[in-house]
């Protein structure tokens, strides 16, 4: 019986590559059993991954939509589902459904603008999708600045890609920072919000933030201190979700559902919501 499509029923995905990024983050490559991309998505959208018997959880799709071959998910080990994912072997099947949520407005509000990406820790995962999308369509955007910070050098996600690809692109500047000094690190040391202030960016651009709530809060303050308006700043939220389609009630904040009205919000829209995210 298949009278209706059912959003809650997933597809099968196969894990075809596992990259160990940091001590607690792995990046998983997922395709369908016949080797295709499970579905098309937009930068910033999410997917529900599950292991039957363990559970289902929402993850941002870290690969760019311009990648037509596969999807990637950078996942930090921090709960039941993620621990299981971290223990799986190549070739393991999982389930996948999506895409969910409103993407970054890469083809509208971002178009023709200079972009400033600011990420902390695993917060780079959702931004990598939009960064690589904008790098792919490089001529559609102005200057691209990327500020990325983590606890230590080992905790920097996508380090190789950042250093070898992003940093070498024309008109792309990468600013890395770690929380505490380390012997083998000659780069910047300090927290992201302070670094953003130090870098003293012009406010003729759009800023995109993702990271731990505390980092978002202080970086938002830093950007506003530099003269940015909330209308120029985008972020992406994370709340507990079960359905992904605005029905189970879990990610409801004010009249919004993060799974379908978000996860991407412009900061002035966010200020309209009750402070519960």
């Amino acid at each position: 019986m298949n009278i209706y499509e059912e959003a809650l029923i997933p597809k099968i995905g196969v894990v075809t590559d596992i990259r160990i990024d940091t001590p607690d983050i792995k990046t998983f490559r997922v395709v369908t059993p016949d080797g295709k991309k499970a579905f098309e998505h937009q930068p910033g959208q999410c997917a529900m991954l599950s292991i039957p018997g363990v559970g289902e959880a929402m993850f941002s799709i870290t690969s760019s939509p311009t990648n037509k071959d596969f999807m990637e998910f950078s996942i930090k080990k921090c709960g039941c589902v993620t621990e299981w994912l971290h223990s799986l072997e190549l070739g393991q099947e999982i389930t996948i459904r999506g895409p969910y949520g409103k993407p970054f407005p890469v083809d509208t509000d971002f178009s023709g603008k200079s972009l400033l990406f600011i990420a902390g820790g695993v917060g780079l995962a959702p931004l990598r999708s939009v960064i690589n999308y904008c790098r792919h369509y490089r001529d559609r955007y102005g200057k691209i600045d990327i500020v990325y910070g983590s606890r230590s050098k080992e905790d920097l996600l996508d380090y190789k890609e950042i250093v070898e690809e992003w940093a070498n692109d024309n008109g792309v500047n990468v600013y890395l920072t770690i929380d505490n000094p380390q012997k083998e690190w000659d780069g910047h040391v300090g927290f992201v919000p302070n670094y953003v202030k130090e870098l003293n960016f012009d406010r003729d651009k759009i800023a995109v933030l993702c990271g731990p709530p505390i980092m978002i809060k202080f970086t938002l303050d830093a950007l506003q201190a530099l003269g940015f308006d909330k209308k120029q700043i985008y972020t992406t939220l994370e709340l507990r979700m079960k359905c992904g389609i605005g029905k189970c009630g879990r990610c409801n904040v004010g009249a919004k559902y993060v799974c379908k009205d978000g996860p991407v919000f412009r900061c002035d829209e966010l200020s309209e919501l009750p402070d519960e995210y």
Partner: protein
Amino acid sequence: MVKFSCEKIDLVFAEIAKTAALYIPSNDKNNKAVFTKWQKGTKLCDSHNTQIGPKDLFFPQTEDLMAFKASNKKIEIIDTRKESEDFVIFGVRACDVKSLEILDRVFLSEPRDSYYAMRREHGIIISLACTRPSEACFCTTFGIAPSEPGADISVWKINNEFFWQANTKRGEELLLKIEHFTTPAEPSEVEGEKQRISVLMKRLPLANLSTNGFGKGKTNELFEREEWAKLSEACLGCGTCTFVCPTCQCYDIKDFNTGNGVIRYRCWDSCMYSDFTKMAHGNNRNTRKERFRQRFMHKLVYFPENNNGLFGCVGCGRCISKCPVSMNIVKVMKKLGGNV
């Protein structure tokens, strides 16, 4: 409109039950009315409303969504959905009829929930005008008329007769099935009863409760009100209000390992529970106050905001009579809306 004498009700039920599962309000062993699958001998209780609404006939308390078989590294997804059987629910009050409209807004909006949609398509609803509203009733606050219950067929019980009025094509077809028990009636014959019910409603203790101060656009005005702290103090977070609520629809999805595969099922959940929003990196509603506020803000502000002003409460009064600490939406509305 047709009518028949009350003695024939069992014959009518038997006729309906020939082609569809029939659910009617009937007293259980504790003398509480619950929707019960009719069989010969099931006695109708039409004096007071059911303990819980007909929500679970469309959105069961637990239901299987799908199954999985896993071997080695392979997973097989099994679509366990079955076509719903035709069913008829008799005796649904106006408040509960309205509650289905509210659930429809959630489950039938895109992407449709096929489990719910299937049951909605197969279920015929015969409503029943309230003869004796309870002291906890306040449906009129939300513009609901208990004398005009609606749905596929509206029913009035007046003295020793039932009057059935079809409102939809499905309702008309059902009336044809029972036509040998009925005689034609005029809508004017129920006018007196409608008047009587309206007068009765105006005399209820909560008749003057108003929605003033609530609805779309009220988030900023109400969210930070200091009264939430006091109001939520007594709440135990037991979730009873959400379970008896005909419009509460939050759910959880869980996996159960049967030993021979995995069943993914869904079950009712409650925003009043401390782990409802708990995730690996924290909980965005850590306190009882926040959870308490969420339930009422959702029904009185957020839901109307997304649904052209339609409130997420139907005034059935169940949460009032069931809350172990006598906290309820009416107290919240009185305190924050400032009405009597």
